[in-house]
């Protein structure tokens, strides 16, 4: 956890109401949503950009994003969904904590993520192709999650003293009946 990170604080905040939480990610609604039904899938660990996120967390986070997308379709009558990652300041990322936007879309919501296509010559495209092919050679070996040692769960149950007193009080009443 990074102390000056807004999202790390949100994740640690027990009072913050979440949509979903597991050991790797949390899902919360966006405070300033683009539409009704805009949620963020955030890895618990602090990573600035997707390149730093281990592969198994990437896949898990997007699998949860997919489930959120399905939930938006089925529960909030979304007609479409967008999944958007703004990765890096140049891409419009505002906070240094990687997250995935899942946005419900409906007819006439006034949003349009379409871009204006750039016209590139054949030669330029060929250069780009070669440049990126060179770099994608190393793609394909994915990190697997290390197996954790099995932890024995010990069952403990806390009972606040306040309730206990009340219970006892009631029990006393029970016993006093005869």
């Amino acid at each position: 956890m990074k102390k000056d990170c807004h999202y790390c604080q949100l994740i640690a905040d027990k009072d913050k109401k979440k949509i979903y939480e597991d050991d790797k990610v949390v899902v919360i609604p966006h405070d300033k949503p683009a539409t009704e039904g805009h949620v963020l899938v955030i890895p618990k660990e602090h990573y600035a950009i997707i390149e730093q996120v281990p592969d198994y967390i990437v896949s898990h986070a997007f699998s949860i994003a997919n489930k959120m997308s399905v939930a938006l379709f089925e529960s909030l009558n979304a007609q479409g969904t967008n999944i958007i990652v703004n990765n890096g300041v140049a891409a419009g990322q505002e906070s240094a904590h990687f997250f995935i936007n899942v946005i419900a879309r409906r007819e006439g919501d006034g949003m349009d993520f379409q871009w204006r296509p750039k016209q590139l010559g054949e030669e330029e495209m060929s250069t780009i192709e070669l440049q990126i092919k060179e770099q994608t050679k190393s793609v394909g070996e994915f990190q697997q999650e290390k197996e954790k040692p099995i932890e024995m769960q010990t069952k403990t149950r806390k009972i606040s003293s306040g309730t206990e007193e009340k219970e006892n009080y009631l029990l006393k009443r029970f016993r006093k009946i005869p």
Partner: protein
Amino acid sequence: MTEGQQGQVTEEDLKNMTPEQIAEMQKQNCIFCHIIAGKVASRKVYEDDKAVGILDINPANPGHVVIIPKEHYAIMPQIPEDILAHLFMVTKGISQACLKAFKAQGTNIFVANGAVAGQRAQHFMIHIIPRKENDGITSFKLPEKQIDEQQIEEIRKILRQKLNEMMGLKEEVIDFDKKREDAQQEEGEGKESEEPAASGKSPEDEGPEEPAEAEGDEAPDDIRKELSGEGPEEEPETEEQAEEGSEDKESKKDEEIDIDIDKIADLFK
């Protein structure tokens, strides 16, 4: 269905077709399936057994790549978990490749599910757009709508419930809080239909920490039954209420306990 009709299939028609029909029709018409099969020329920059990465012919920026699954899926929810996981791990790799290859300062990863969301082809794809400062792309700046907190909270509750439902069915994640709640709910339901099973369960659940209380809780129940001389018709109801009390003792939520205590207290007035 004739060739001519296939070209003009509306969203409405798609909804009325079986998934098999849709898949078959879409595969035949899908340019991306043709690209994968090698029938249409493209600039492939990545390929493995499940996914292909090609340069977008209408790029938002130089180096705009789309990742497509080899199998035909129209939208994300149709994609099996393992393929989806694979696609996004590839996406991460390609994003990194974009940063290196073009000295990009960032990437946008964009998925559109459904025509409303801006999906144009009937083949699922992930866009990766390399970005540089001041490259003039403003498409991915997310608007901020004014929605009051109450509504956001309502949406949150709906989604949480839905997600729990989905996860509960698949049992992929063990959410201890939820499991406890579920167990209590089941217990509650079971009690209404078959009481002996439920009452046998509760002392067992109490654990060794407080055996005295577990017994104590039931004992007065019996005593009360004997002594209060209530009619047989009322008995199941009151017993049920009393047991709810014992069950709630396990719960850490003080609010709930208070409410149920009130209920029990009311019974004696």
